[in-house]
């Protein structure tokens, strides 16, 4: 363990405030639970953990860290979602009227309703076994990746702010402003291949960074609450783009709808697998962004300072870290990432600017970051999962008539259950290896003043 990490741990140990600490405490709870059924509760002790943690690479952490709780949480959520689908299914309701005469009818109908919906979801998001050719079969997977791209980028922005103790609900507005600037460069400037796309990306980054930078600046200078600021700026951004789309500079010539001209071909992300698929280079950019954020958080001075500010602003200030500068920096970077999500939308998937360019990616990004426990690769994985839900949800709705809203229910249940490992453990009657230690861990974070 490097000195930096040791220092950081001390910082977080002495933390009294800051949400991130509690998050981390909760995350550490999960760390020790790699294989709870195999390891008796008594055999694990808190002292083991540092060594364990040291030897863990980021990848291992994702694969093993909270794996069991995460998997069980997903299963529980899918089960509850399935119940909801079954209860609202007509055939189930019909067979329920003679439930006591032939219970198997209703149970069968319920099973069919739920499993059909989930099979369609899988078919629409991962692999379509009914496809005519191989490319048709894997088409759903590329759709998932396409949808996941903005989710990952924006999710990284939210996660990064979270690590610095800021709750960034403003990804929605940041995506919109990033997309607006990017789209404007994309359709009103006419530049050679390569340069044009580069400028589009930069414009998107600047747009998002500016919009989030306002929040960081106001938070740092006036102490205004970032939750309020970001929520308000979301609405301002939406109205701003609605207005811009009625002006000659942005509105498509000859159209009375609020829609921009098509972006130039030179401004678009090239498609990754040719015309048959919608997946574009934005996904590669998302992967690069994840690597960058990982490096930033874990290997750079800025990242260290951000985490210190998030863990305990007072301690960070005492240690000579400028908290105000930290807030501005983290919001600017978070906004830049959300801006990338906007670029992925206008230069990749959509190709035009509309007021609905951000869809609900900005809000989904929050759940993505929460599910990913604010780690870069966790967010990446969560983005893929939610991308799959979204892409598959569309297929599910058309194939089985199950409303896509069920996806929202399942997604939020997953986050809720993963955030409360004790609940999942008690439902599945798992031993609670973290119970004792978790208490001890949590204490400094939550009741620090008691010492």
């Amino acid at each position: 363990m490097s000195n930096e990490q040791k220092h950081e741990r001390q910082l977080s140990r002495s933390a009294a405030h800051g949400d991130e600490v509690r998050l981390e405490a909760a995350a550490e709870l999960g760390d020790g639970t790699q294989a709870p059924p195999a390891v008796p509760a008594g055999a694990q002790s808190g002292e083991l953990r540092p060594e364990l943690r040291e030897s863990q690479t980021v990848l291992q952490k994702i694969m093993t860290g909270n794996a069991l709780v995460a998997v069980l949480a997903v299963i529980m959520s899918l089960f509850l979602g399935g119940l909801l689908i079954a209860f609202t299914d007509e055939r189930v309701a019909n067979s329920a009227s003679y439930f006591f005469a032939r219970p198997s009818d209703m149970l069968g109908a319920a099973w069919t309703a739920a499993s059909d919906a989930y099979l369609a979801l899988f078919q629409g998001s991962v692999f379509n076994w009914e496809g005519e050719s191989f490319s048709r079969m894997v088409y759903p997977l590329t759709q998932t990746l396409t949808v996941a791209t903005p989710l990952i980028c924006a999710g990284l922005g939210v996660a990064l702010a979270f690590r610095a103790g800021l709750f960034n609900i403003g990804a929605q507005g940041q995506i919109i402003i990033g997309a607006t600037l990017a789209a404007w460069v994309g359709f009103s400037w006419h530049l050679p291949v390569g340069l044009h796309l580069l400028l589009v990306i930069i414009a998107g980054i600047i747009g998002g960074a500016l919009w989030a930078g306002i929040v960081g600046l106001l938070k740092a200078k006036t102490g205004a609450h970032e939750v309020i600021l970001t929520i308000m700026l979301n609405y301002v951004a939406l109205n701003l783009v609605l207005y811009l789309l009625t002006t000659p500079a942005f509105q498509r010539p000859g159209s009375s709808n609020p829609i921009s001209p098509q972006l130039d071909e030179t401004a678009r992300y090239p498609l990754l697998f040719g015309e048959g698929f919608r997946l574009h280079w934005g996904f590669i950019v998302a992967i690069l962004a994840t690597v960058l954020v990982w490096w930033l958080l874990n290997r750079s001075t800025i990242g260290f300072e951000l985490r210190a500010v998030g863990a305990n602003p007072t301690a960070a200030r005492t240690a000579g870290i400028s908290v105000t500068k930290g807030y501005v920096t983290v919001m600017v970077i978070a906004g830049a990432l959300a801006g990338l999500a906007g670029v992925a939308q206008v230069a990749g998937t959509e190709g035009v600017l509309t007021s609905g360019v951000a869809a609900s990616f900005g809000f989904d990004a929050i759940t993505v970051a929460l599910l990913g426990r604010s780690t870069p690769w966790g967010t990446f994985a969560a983005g893929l999962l939610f991308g799959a839900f979204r892409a598959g949800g569309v297929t599910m709705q058309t194939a089985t008539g199950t409303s896509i809203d069920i996806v929202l229910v399942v997604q939020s249940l997953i986050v809720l259950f993963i955030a409360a490992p004790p609940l999942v453990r008690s439902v599945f009657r798992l031993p609670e290896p973290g119970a004792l230690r978790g208490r001890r861990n949590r204490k400094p974070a939550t009741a620090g003043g008691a010492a």
Partner: protein
Amino acid sequence: MSAATLTAPEAGSSTVSEVRNWKTPVMLAVLAVAALLVFAIGAPSNNVTFRLTAESDPIVLPAIVVSAPVTGWICAVVLLAAAAWSFLRVRAGRPVPGWLLAVFAVFFVAGFLTWVVGSARTPNLALYGLLAGSVTLAVPLIFGSLSGVLCERSGVINIAIEGQLLFGAFAAAIAGSLSGSAFVGLLAAVIAGVMVSAVLAVFSIKYIVNQVIVGVVLNVLVSGLTGFLFSTVMSADSATWNSPPRLAPISIPVLSDIPVIGPILFEQSIVGYLMYIAVAVIYVGLYHTKWGLRTRAVGEHPKAADTVGVKVNRTRFTNVLLAGAVAGLGGAFFTLVLVSSFGRDMTAGQGYIALAALIFGRWNPLGAFFAALLFGFATNLQSVLSFLGTPVPNQFLAMLPYVVTIFAVAGLVGKSRAPASNGIPYIKG
């Protein structure tokens, strides 16, 4: 370690207050200069009419007619003077008084109204309608922010206001339609709000999950759940499931005939009257009863409260559930009073605005009430003005409430401080 944590709040607040000292005058100056440029120099040259009563009202007051440039200049001069005076006050090391901010706000709104109505195609505004509509739009916001007050005063952050409102609206619609009685709908809304609150309480108090996370996720969950049931059950047979009876306004004789304030105070639906009662009860309860003292103690310093025998987590639990009941009433307003059917995501972010009103109102029931009224006013102003045909694009008017909030939380709120233990779970020992 204890030293570090003990000094933490003081160190934080001292730096913040140093910054805050100057931000109010700066913000006032910016607004005053904007007022000078727009309301005074950019004033339209015509007269502006403000109607105080409708012609059909029992008591008819004469309309107020003012000259736009004269009013604009008066307002701008007063605003500039107020800003200058606040600079002098801060320079002398004294705080900017609250009444100055109130005067500033009144003149700013007056100047803005005169300017914007004067520039409209028809420079004639029905002030009574504007005010009454503002209160109507503010009712759910007030319930929402009161829910936030109850939660956050006891130390639990309530981001789930949006979910409580939405689920309340949904339950009121279903129960009202099935039973045919609006009162059953009202009761169902209360229960629904409590249900959302119960999840918030269990996860944030029992399982010590980050309260902001639970709140955000609950909003998504309720949105998904109601959206799903709306598209599967409700739209299939909306006559059975989604046609709740409406709660008609009840006008109190004589009193409701008073010009301007009569319709606002004495011609409301039951939910509207309940809103006034809730504000009063929660205000008195919070500051003048044993329960209120305990609630505030638990939110500020749970350890001290625990030491004198207050059950911290039980108090929080009750308060969160109570908050759900209050927000549920606000939700019922959407489906039983405002429109008589449920729509997907019909609360449209009002819960978040209520959250802003709560912070703007400094975690005080009365403050939250007035802040919510301000939002209702700004929202209603937008729809009234777009009807009048102003030169300002509609989208900018729609931004108004949000921009006002940003200015408010950044510059005018003053020493807004959350309850000290807000968001920090209490673990005994």
